[in-house]
């Protein structure tokens, strides 16, 4: 089985991108990734595109992106598992290369969240829950994570301040990321004074929708070493699911799909959670990042609140997490997010993280959640 490496990364600016169509956003990231890899477009054998279709007026978006990239007649296809679509594309590229079917594959995550008007978006978001037994009572996406947060507080004494400290950290690093939607620090006091959304969570506990794209070029080992001076290897891929309905989850203080995906990824990579030098985790809400610390084994169950309060998720702490600002500050264009996470890990493992570089980063991890943990992908990356 071929070892699979990343030879190029490209990350567009995340934000309200009224200046560009979704295929133009994809091109922005693709151009950067090709330049990074010093490759001509003809080298790309296939394209895996990640996007959540219902946010776009264009149906079957892989076709329009592939045409705009001028890659016809090379194969292209779409992956979709809600907010984890980008990591599904990465897993698909890994499978395509490891099988020997293709040697060089581009993965592009792209999403325009602002293409539809607000009532259309609200109607879509309202159907995130089990539409038969939950959504009928007006559940919301933050509402579901609030249910986790309340139970986590009950069992482990986690506090609203600890939740808010996750936002403070991610805004701190987002301020250093030129591709981020929000590039300003916030205070704990400001976060705790923001408007309620779904108790105990407030506005600053929630990430923001954004438009944007990110691109990775993967290659089989032989080609990767020929293309790149510093390929970063995708050595462990993990993926698991959990029930759609919150009513069928035995434990509402973590995501069982994340625990299982993490176990798989480390088993394949021959690594352990303690060896992870830098991690990108799915902080769609602050409680999600606290649960990720625990689900991924960065700390013991129930100690996620203390982990952030003790600054263990900062550079210099036990496991630096989301040093690019995370979904919270960087923005969350849902199809692009998993690809964006991988771009940052590759950037860190190359030692090109600039002011937010984690020292001696040789093993990195991404954790990308779809929905409220219905899907989870955990990947382990390593540099030579």
């Amino acid at each position, binding site marked *: 089985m071929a070892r699979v490496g990343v030879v190029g990364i490209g990350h567009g600016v995340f934000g309200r991108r009224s200046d560009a169509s979704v295929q133009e956003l994809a091109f922005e990231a693709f151009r950067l990734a090709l330049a990074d890899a010093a490759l001509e477009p003809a080298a790309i054998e296939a394209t895996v595109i990640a996007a959540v279709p219902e946010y776009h007026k264009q149906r079957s978006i892989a076709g329009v992106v592939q045409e705009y990239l001028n890659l016809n007649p090379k194969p292209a296809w779409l992956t979709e598992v809600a907010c984890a679509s980008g990591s599904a594309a990465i897993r698909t590229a890994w499978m395509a290369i490891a099988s020997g079917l293709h040697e060089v594959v581009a993965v592009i995550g792209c999403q325009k969240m602002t293409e539809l008007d607000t*009532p259309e978006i*609200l*109607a879509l*978001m*309202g159907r995130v829950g089990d539409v*038969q*037994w*939950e*959504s*009928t*009572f*007006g*559940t*919301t996406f*933050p*509402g579901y994570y*609030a*249910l*986790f*947060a*309340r*139970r986590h507080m*009950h069992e482990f004494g986690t506090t609203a301040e600890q939740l808010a400290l996750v936002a403070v950290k991610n805004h701190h690093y987002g301020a250093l990321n030129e591709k981020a939607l929000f590039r300003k620090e916030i205070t704990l006091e400001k976060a705790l004074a923001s*408007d*309620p*959304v*779904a*108790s*105990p*969570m407030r506005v600053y506990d929630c990430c923001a929708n954004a438009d944007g794209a990110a691109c990775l070029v993967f290659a089989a080992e032989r080609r990767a070493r020929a293309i790149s001076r510093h390929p970063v290897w995708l050595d462990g891929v993990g993926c698991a699911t959990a029930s759609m*309905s*919150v*009513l*069928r989850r035995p434990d*509402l203080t973590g995501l069982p799909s994340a625990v299982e995906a993490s176990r798989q990824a480390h088993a394949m990579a021959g690594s352990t959670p303690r060896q992870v030098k830098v991690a990108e985790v799915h902080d769609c809400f602050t409680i999600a990042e606290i649960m990720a610390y625990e689900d991924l084994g960065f700390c013991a169950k129930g100690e996620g609140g203390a982990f952030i309060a003790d600054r263990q998720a900062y550079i210099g702490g036990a496991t630096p997490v989301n040093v690019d600002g995370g979904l919270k500050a960087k923005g969350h264009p849902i199809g692009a997010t998993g690809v964006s996470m991988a771009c940052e890990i590759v950037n860190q493992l190359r030692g090109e993280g600039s002011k937010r570089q984690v020292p001696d980063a040789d093993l990195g991890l991404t954790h990308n959640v779809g929905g409220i943990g219905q899907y989870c992908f955990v990947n382990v990356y390593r540099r030579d």
Partner: protein
Amino acid sequence: MTDFACHLRAGRLVASRCVACGHLAYPPRADCPACLSEDFTYHEISGRGTVHTYTRIDAAPAGFETLSPYVIGVVDLAETGRLLAWFGPSIPESEIAVGMPVQVVPRLFEEIEEIRVYYSLERPEAPGAGAV
């Protein structure tokens, strides 16, 4: 689930019971996850339970704007399974806590188009709580 709604309208909260293996499920389902049988009956349950977790929704989704804020709770049912519902008028928000006992009470909200399942969470001793 029309039959489920008919039971609710008559004041009964029902789970599904697999005729083949006896598996009891709430929310009810037509196909048994344990033995794969499609033969089931409805089985009345008490509606007693405890609050597993809850949240007050301030930012409501489309169709619920005029109803917010409202508090929803996830309840561990005494017999089996869980349900999610609004807290009803007998429990003020200030008294809601994880672990508190509640009674699921059938209620008809037919004037609200979005609502198709009809019950609320009430004090176990509240008027009407004995209807289930």
